[in-house]
């Protein structure tokens, strides 16, 4: 059974379409990264997966069930939170979990101690949540999700508010949960984190999915980029701009960066040397997820922009 399948999701607030015909497909065993700038529609889409929002159009299936029509059964095997997890501040961390476990039923009440230990909160479990830091609330949110012994874990910015040690712990925990066979669907602003954790990603921009697929395919899909340093960068820049097979020529720091296939690069190297310039470096550059992310989410604003030579 596919953990998450969404087709043509639309959610509008007045004239603004927060989510605009979104398709998502999370496979079993994925650590699925959901990326997008603030306000792109990530949280709205995640709310629809958890049955918190009704889409205006489209449909969602979670393990084959419709969270709009089959709650709470549609969320069997699903744990998670959207935005910052909130708890009753006047109750202790443990009591909050006991409440949620009672609402879950099954063996959840017996798992409270274990999940507190898993997220490292057993020492503060008897303190009221009102006194918890943001990072502790994030941990408690994860504990609340794990109470359900989920097959699908949905996490919205799980490392928000965590200190570097907490981020590392959370990352390790997500990795170990995935290694145990749990499917993880997470949104994050931390691209390095997504790059390290995720196997598949989708990128959402202004409510629309601009990429969905394996992270490796996303890297492969980008045009090969090269970095060139010569004895005369101004002259080299003119050559690059005139060359028809080169794209997206930019001056970054001391280097000229451009996209081209290998044949065009070979021709360019001969052309540069032929023009009497010395080549100090001509190296292929692997696009980082951050670069790909900006290309996908800000493409119209930055593509083909050439920084002026000082």
């Amino acid at each position: 059974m596919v953990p998450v399948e969404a087709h043509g999701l639309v959610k509008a607030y007045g004239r603004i379409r927060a989510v605009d015909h979104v398709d998502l497909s999370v496979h079993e065993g994925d650590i699925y990264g959901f990326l997008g700038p603030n306000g792109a529609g990530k949280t709205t889409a995640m709310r629809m997966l958890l049955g918190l929002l009704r889409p205006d159009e489209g449909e969602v299936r979670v393990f084959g069930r419709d969270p709009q029509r089959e709650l709470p059964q549609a969320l069997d095997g699903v744990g998670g939170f959207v935005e910052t997890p909130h708890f009753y501040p006047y109750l202790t961390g443990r009591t909050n979990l006991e409440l949620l476990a009672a609402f879950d039923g099954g063996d959840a009440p017996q798992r409270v101690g274990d999940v507190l230990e898993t997220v490292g909160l057993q020492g503060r479990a008897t303190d009221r949540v009102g006194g918890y830091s943001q990072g502790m609330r994030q941990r408690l949110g994860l504990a609340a999700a794990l109470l359900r012994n989920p097959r699908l874990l949905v996490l919205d910015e799980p490392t928000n508010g965590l200190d570097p040690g907490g981020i590392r712990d959370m990352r390790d925990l997500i990795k170990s949960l995935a290694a145990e066979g749990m499917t993880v669907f997470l949104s994050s602003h931390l691209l390095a984190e997504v790059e390290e954790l995720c196997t598949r990603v989708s990128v959402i921009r202004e409510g629309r999915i601009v990429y969905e697929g394996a992270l490796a395919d996303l890297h492969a899909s980008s045009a090969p980029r090269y970095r060139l340093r010569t004895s005369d960068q101004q002259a080299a820049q003119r050559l690059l701009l005139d060359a028809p097979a080169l794209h997206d020529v930019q001056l970054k720091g001391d280097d000229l960066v451009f996209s081209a296939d290998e044949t065009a690069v070979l021709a360019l190297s001969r052309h540069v040397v032929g023009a009497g310039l010395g080549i100090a470096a001509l190296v292929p550059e692997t696009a980082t997820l951050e670069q790909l992310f900006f290309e996908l989410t800000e493409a119209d604003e930055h593509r083909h922009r050439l920084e002026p030579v000082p």
Partner: protein
Amino acid sequence: MTPTTLTAYRWEVRKLAAQKRTYIGVGASALLPVIFVSVMALQTGGPYDVPLGHNLRHTGIALALVVLTFASRFGAQLVTALVAGDIVAGESSGGTLKMIFTRSLGRGQILAGKTLATFTYVVLLLLALLTTGLVSGGIAWGFNPVVDLTGTRLSAVHALGLTFAALGVFAIPLAAVAAFGIFLSVVTRNSAAAIVGTLVYELVMEAVVGLVHLQWLHHYLLSAQFDAWHGLFQTPVFWAPVVRCAWVSALFAAIPLAAAFAIFKRRDVAGE
């Protein structure tokens, strides 16, 4: 174990028990009779013109009901509105709704648990008032027979039984006020708006009672049902107002509750 409405109810009561606001309401309710007795001890005379008021200084049994007559205008409704108006809206503003909506309990069960917990609170308020009313009134004036509204002398035990019954009758319209507070709590998603709205609702009904050409409507308004217990302190017992109180209050509770459930089960949870 599969979670049920009882699970939601039990935890709602536990949450209420963990909040200071609950104790402030119950404490205020319990304090009213004590203040009443203290003020009467410092002066002569008393509110002899209110139902059962002529029994004051002769028996402590009537105290709780006399205090209730004064509280019935707005005091009881205010304390009820404080809890009912916040029971859902507090979760909306606190961001906890989305946490409990993604568990294995249905939304209808969650709201049913909240409604029952609010009604429990209403009963608790009245029990607190009755307990301190009986204790303080008993200490001040003893447990002597009561003269009812038709001039019949009732034994202390009989009057005590009727007092409990009267509080039960008083609780019915108060539960209907709570139901309206819950409805506003669901609709407005804002505690202050729901609390104020519930009180305005009561004010409007009081205002309608004051309109001469709408006098025929008086008996069928919620505010009039707070006096229904007077029927119990007549000899023989006059059941008509008690029966009317039951069905009018049930109607005033059922309509907002049905609307609240319909909205709560379908509502979007965005940013809360």
